[in-house]
């Protein structure tokens, strides 16, 4: 275990992670925030997480190593997102920023309304702001257009941004008109200690292909419906294990019935994350058929368990694994079937333990934390936050980049936020807000 070493520039930051997505909800963003926070805590920084209340879980909770989590009592209204009231969360966020003595606010996920609001308020309060984008989004449909506008507004004022792959960086820069020098690329990582290979659990007479994903359109469930029967027909010794649930599960069940594949395709339903490893180690090959992916952590987990991956060549997937650990194909059924064929031929040359050892050196959360620290140091050293200078920059950026109407509207929002900050200073002066004590890291 690493001792809490001095950072490269010797400074310890006090970071506030903000997102609508955190435990007890499970997913990529949630894991990212948790593991990153734990590694930063071990490196000597202070980390506090803010998210919305989940059911009756509201208030302050402490997680491992003294990670403080604020479940603020604003309930989600749509797809895990808090109701966007623009200024509603300002008093509470301001209170939290003052009592914890926060220097940097780190927002996660463009789809999170709490994140956008918190970043706006943090800038008004004078804190430095970093934003991490975890997904790829489109440009053409109505929802994406609106979200990109909001993103332009939030990112107009951000110090640094982080993306999880180069493809994701391109996507974010195009959507938000952010200068690319401000965007860092820090890939996600995987907890290799939890995902260890166990070849003894694999059958020796069959080739087992594992699929674990949400069965939705985005994750290519329709592709699976075409690919599975074709592969079963061409390779008689192949056995499929499909884990996960979603709206497209019905189609997969239908496919199974239609081609009488009940004894060759096993449907497991929703799999809790703790059980994913036990299912992965039963397989030889991991099949990922996503239609869009910024960075696929599922592939990392599979590679860490010693499985060979077959995946669609979309988004950031080609950047994830070295080419001898992955077989790529176009998101077309015929190409994917031939890719599976190539993978089956490659199987004898794969050593699961070698793969696991390589993954340990390639990806680690401590490495992600060190690189994030560099981003924080850059953010802290960046330009000042004089109000006039900030407003001038905002006016220029927003008027020219966002368009005439949206630009004016966003400037108005920023100015009203500042007036609200002055009102809050009168109503509840910053000097009277108590500073919360820090708890030592175990």
């Amino acid at each position, binding site marked *: 275990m690493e001792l809490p070493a001095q950072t490269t520039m010797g400074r310890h930051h006090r970071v506030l992670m903000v997102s609508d997505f955190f435990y007890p909800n499970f997913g990529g963003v949630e894991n990212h925030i948790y593991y990153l926070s734990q590694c930063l805590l071990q490196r000597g920084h202070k980390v506090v997480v803010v998210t919305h209340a989940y059911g009756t879980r*509201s*208030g*302050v909770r402490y997680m491992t190593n003294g990670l403080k989590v*604020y*479940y*603020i*009592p*604003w309930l989600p209204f749509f797809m895990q997102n808090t109701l966007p009231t623009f200024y*509603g969360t300002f*008093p*509470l966020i301001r*209170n*939290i920023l003052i*009592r914890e003595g926060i220097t940097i606010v780190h927002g996660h996920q463009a789809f999170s309304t709490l994140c956008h609001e918190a970043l706006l308020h943090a800038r008004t309060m004078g804190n430095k702001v970093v934003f991490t984008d975890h997904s790829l989004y489109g440009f053409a449909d109505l929802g994406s257009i609106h979200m990109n506008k909001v993103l332009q507004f939030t990112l107009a004022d951000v110090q640094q941004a982080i993306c999880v792959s180069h493809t994701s960086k391109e996507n974010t820069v195009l959507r938000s008109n952010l200068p690319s020098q401000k965007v860092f690329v820090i890939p996600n990582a995987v907890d290799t200690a939890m995902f260890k290979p166990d070849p003894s659990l694999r059958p020796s007479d069959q080739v087992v292909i594992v699929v674990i994903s949400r069965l939705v359109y985005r994750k290519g469930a329709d592709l699976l419906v075409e690919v599975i029967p074709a592969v079963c027909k061409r390779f008689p010794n192949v056995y499929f294990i499909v884990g996960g649930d979603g709206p497209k599960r019905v189609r997969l069940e239908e496919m199974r019935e239609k081609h009488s594949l009940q004894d060759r395709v096993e449907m497991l339903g929703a799999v809790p994350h703790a059980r994913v490893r036990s299912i992965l180690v039963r397989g030889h090959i991991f099949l990922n058929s996503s239609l869009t992916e910024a960075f696929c952590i599922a592939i990392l987990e599979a590679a860490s368990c010693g499985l060979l991956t077959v995946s669609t060549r979309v988004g950031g997937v080609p950047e994830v694994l070295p080419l001898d650990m992955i077989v790529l194909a176009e998101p077309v059924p015929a190409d994917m079937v031939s890719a599976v064929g190539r993978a089956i031929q490659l199987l004898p040359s794969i050593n699961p333990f070698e793969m696991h050892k390589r993954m340990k050196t390639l990806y680690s959360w401590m490495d992600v934390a060190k690189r994030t620290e560099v981003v924080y140091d850059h953010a802290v050293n960046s330009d000042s936050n004089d109000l006039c200078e900030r407003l001038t920059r905002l006016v220029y950026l927003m008027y020219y980049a966002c368009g005439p109407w949206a630009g004016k509207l966003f400037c108005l929002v920023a100015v009203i936020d500042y007036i609200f900050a002055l009102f809050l200073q009168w109503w*509840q002066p910053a*000097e*009277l807000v*108590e500073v*919360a*004590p820090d708890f030592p890291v175990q």
Partner: protein
Amino acid sequence: METEEKPVLNGEKHVVDYPRYTYECEGHIQALASVHRIIVKQRKGRFFKIFWLTLMLCSFLLIFNSIFVSQVINGLECIFLLSTLIVRMFQKNEVTEEAVILMPMLGVQLETSYHSGKVMRRFLPMQKILAAVINEAVTPTTCYFYLALLVREKSELTLVFQEVRPPLDVLISIWKALNDATNFQPNYPASIG
């Protein structure tokens, strides 16, 4: 930041000043009791602000209601009366002082005194109290520390201070005193302070 751990002797008061409250701590060795008081400081300008806000609100309402333009003078008198009534209503429910009286052998008494002269008292026998805890409360607009007691056969925490929100140092010293009181063993010599 630690408060001084001076032994509090008979009848001696230990007073600490905070921006919003005054904290007084008294100890009585013979009665084996100690009293912790939180006195809310009277801020002169406070009701004036509420008064002015009500006044402005009512005058805006009146201006929009142009039917009564001719009766503006009477209207102003009504506004004045209304504002005074609202101010008096706020004042009556205002808390002037909250106190905790610790009697290690008997129990704990919690007092709340209002501006109207009314005093509300609650007594908790010592056997019923399991422990004292300091917790953080998060509301939609703010976040603060509070002191509460775990009471037997009750699923909810009993708040020690209903209205006032003293700073963390005060809560910690009262918590320590409560802890000593709940763990008090009659066979051992009394240790005060």
